[in-house]
């Protein structure tokens, strides 16, 4: 900007003193350096791969993988291709991250609020929990839950029974599996209808309140719709959902859904670890709302529950959402520690086993990183949209 002052300057500066020329030179050098590094790496990689006889390209994705995976949400067996193992790993990563985010949010909010409790014992207990679990490496916690806790559970023969239908052993947790018979489709349809009706109801109630000030109890009504309608249909269509209850055969359990111990340990560790960070975020969010806001709302005659819902929580959320987003991202990235205990996530089955078998490091590492990049960018995008929706509106 200093060079635009023209007439004020005594003569033109020497080119090496001109900021515009200098910045142009710097940028050209930087670009050249990046291009040179990129080119060298590319050349080296090509030469090295040729000399080691490594194939290039994504053709390997259509080859048979030939290894088993202990857990898959989609159908998988040894005769399927590497692209299928990629999908299995991806869905397993998404499963553990999604569940982890759900549980960590619940635990984190409870502990964060407990930390502000007027009850000394509860507040100190929450503080102790945060200080202990935040300062211990996640990998160690995963090992602890997997080897020291779940590994010490009794074998399937002496499995602990829960109400006679669920079993806990060192092979994992086995719960009854719902079996959908004909007529269950009607329940699904009613559920969808109930969801649509309640969404419309909430929007209508909000508009009416904005226009007339009259409040409609939209939340309890929609809850009743969503829970009540499918239940009604369940009985009308003659109870079309059966349960496949696990039974102990000669050597192992048959029937039911098995949650493998690897999933359990990973989920418990991720939840407990991330919840400590979420708790601190929630606490700082709540304390950031000045008490004058609460007092003013109470002075207006709002009942305490509505003060919380309409005044305190919306302001606290503004402080909470951005750091909460990075915790969700961290949890998703941390789920890759699964490889240490053998939960078949993306890093384990694809970057681990598939890479070892095919040796195509470049393609596989690139694909794995692309997945995490996509997840990261989409989570930040969604959260930014949400963040903008709740942001403070200023003049």
């Amino acid at each position, binding site marked *: 900007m200093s060079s635009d002052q023209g007439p004020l300057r005594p003569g033109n500066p020497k080119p090496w003193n001109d900021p515009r020329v200098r910045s142009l030179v710097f*940028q050209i050098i930087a670009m050249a350096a990046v291009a040179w590094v990129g080119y060298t790496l590319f050349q080296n990689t090509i030469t090295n791969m040729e000399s080691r006889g490594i194939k290039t390209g994504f053709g390997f994705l259509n080859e048979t993988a030939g290894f088993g995976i202990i857990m898959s949400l989609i159908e998988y067996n040894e005769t399927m291709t590497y692209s299928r193992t990629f999908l299995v790993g991806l869905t397993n990563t998404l499963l553990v991250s999604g569940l982890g985010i759900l549980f960590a949010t619940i635990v984190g909010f409870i502990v964060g609020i407990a930390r502000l409790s007027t009850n000394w014992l509860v507040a100190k207990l929450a503080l102790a929990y945060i200080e202990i679990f935040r300062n211990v490496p996640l990998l160690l916690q995963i090992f602890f839950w997997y080897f020291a806790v779940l590994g010490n559970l009794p074998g399937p023969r002496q499995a602990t029974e829960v109400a006679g239908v669920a079993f806990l052993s060192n092979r994992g947790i086995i719960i009854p599996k719902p079996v959908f018979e004909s007529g269950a489709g009607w329940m699904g349809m009613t559920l969808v209808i109930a969801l649509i009706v309640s969404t419309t109801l909430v929007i209508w109630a909000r508009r009416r309140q904005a226009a007339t000030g009259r409040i409609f109890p939209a939340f309890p009504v929609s809850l009743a719709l969503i829970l009540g309608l499918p239940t009604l249909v369940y009985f009308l269509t003659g109870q079309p959902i059966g349960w496949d209850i696990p039974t102990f055969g000669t050597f192992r359990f048959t029937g039911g859904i098995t949650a493998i111990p690897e999933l359990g340990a990973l989920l418990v560790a991720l939840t407990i670890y991330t919840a400590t960070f979420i708790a601190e975020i929630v606490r700082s969010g709540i304390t950031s709302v000045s008490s004058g806001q609460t007092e003013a709302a109470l002075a207006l005659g709002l009942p305490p529950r509505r003060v919380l819902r309409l005044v305190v929580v919306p302001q606290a959320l503004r402080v909470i959402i951005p750091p909460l987003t990075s915790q969700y991202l961290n949890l998703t990235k941390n789920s890759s520690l699964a490889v240490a205990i053998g939960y078949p996530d993306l890093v384990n089955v694809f970057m681990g086993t598939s*890479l070892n078998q095919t040796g195509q490091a470049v393609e596989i590492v690139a694909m794995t*990183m692309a997945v995490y990049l996509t997840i990261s960018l989409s989570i930040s995008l969604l959260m930014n949209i949400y963040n903008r929706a709740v942001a403070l509106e200023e003049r």
Partner: protein
Amino acid sequence: MATHQPLPSQSAPVVQRGIVRWLRENLFSSWLNSIVTLVVGYYLLTTLVPLIDWAFFSAVFTGAGVEACNPNSACWIFIQERFGFFMYGFYPEALRWRPTLAFVLFALAVVPPFLPLPSRVGRWAGIFGITGLPVAGYILISGGLFGLESVNTSQWGGLMLTLILAYVGIIAALPIGVALALGRRSEMPIIRGICVVFIEFWRAVPLITILFMASVMLPLFLPDGVSFDKLLRALVGITLFQAAYMAEVVRGGLQAIPRGQYEAAEALGLGYWRRMRLIILPQALKIVVPGIANTVISLFKDTTLVLIIGLFDLLGAVKSTLSDPAWNNVMAEGYLFVAFCFWVFCFGMSRYSHRIEKQLDTDHRQ
């Protein structure tokens, strides 16, 4: 005329004083609070008392071998017997004085801010910590110079390796991070673009994939004949990963400096580098001490991941010993020991950062 005789002042009723009042206010302020206190207290007592008994009172501290242990209480002999391995890994026993000496030097560089010494001493200790110590530590631990017997990096391990990874990672990541942050705030679009892409890429992928990449792909990137050892590859990965996080922390500090400071520095006629070095960065770095401390702590915890690519850090060393059939059922003790070590370091670091924050606080706030 009756004179007014003031009564002697009475002490507050029992329920408004001392421990009783504290209990009433903090634990039994309402019937709901009382129930919560009783329930939580009951569960706490029933879990903590057996746990403390297991870990301390009935635990076995002396004796030889697994025979001296009792299955119903903690067996700390295990930790004592393998202590050397947990601290130094496969480092030759006769040479362990060298890492110990390096550790003493490290302590000399780190401890002064905690002691009531003149600030000059603290500053020199800090300068030694980032310049002399890495060199001296490398010569001491690695050997090969001044007649010291050379020790291959594959023999490094235990807590020593954890500390090396964390320390080198931070010392290297901080300047790179500062440079990246300055680049991201630069007015030159191409430089800014390069920095943004670099930072966002490293921050979006998990450290494990970076370590995998460092161990599998780095050899492919290098020209024929050049090879890095495993430890160095891990260090490169950790450093670049951490530098990206550091850059975002520093960027926050740079953004927090009021525009007036930048403009005043320009008005003084200072060039870009002197502006940054003398005016902007000292203030920015001071603001972000807590953020840097958080990054350091998370790096320290993340060093455990190197066990996945086959390095024996503290966690790796303990884990490998736990598979020894001679010691059965000391799993919990082993992991608790590692947890305790990490906890002490991480908690210590967060206290340390509070200390530095206070020392650097030159604000004349009311």
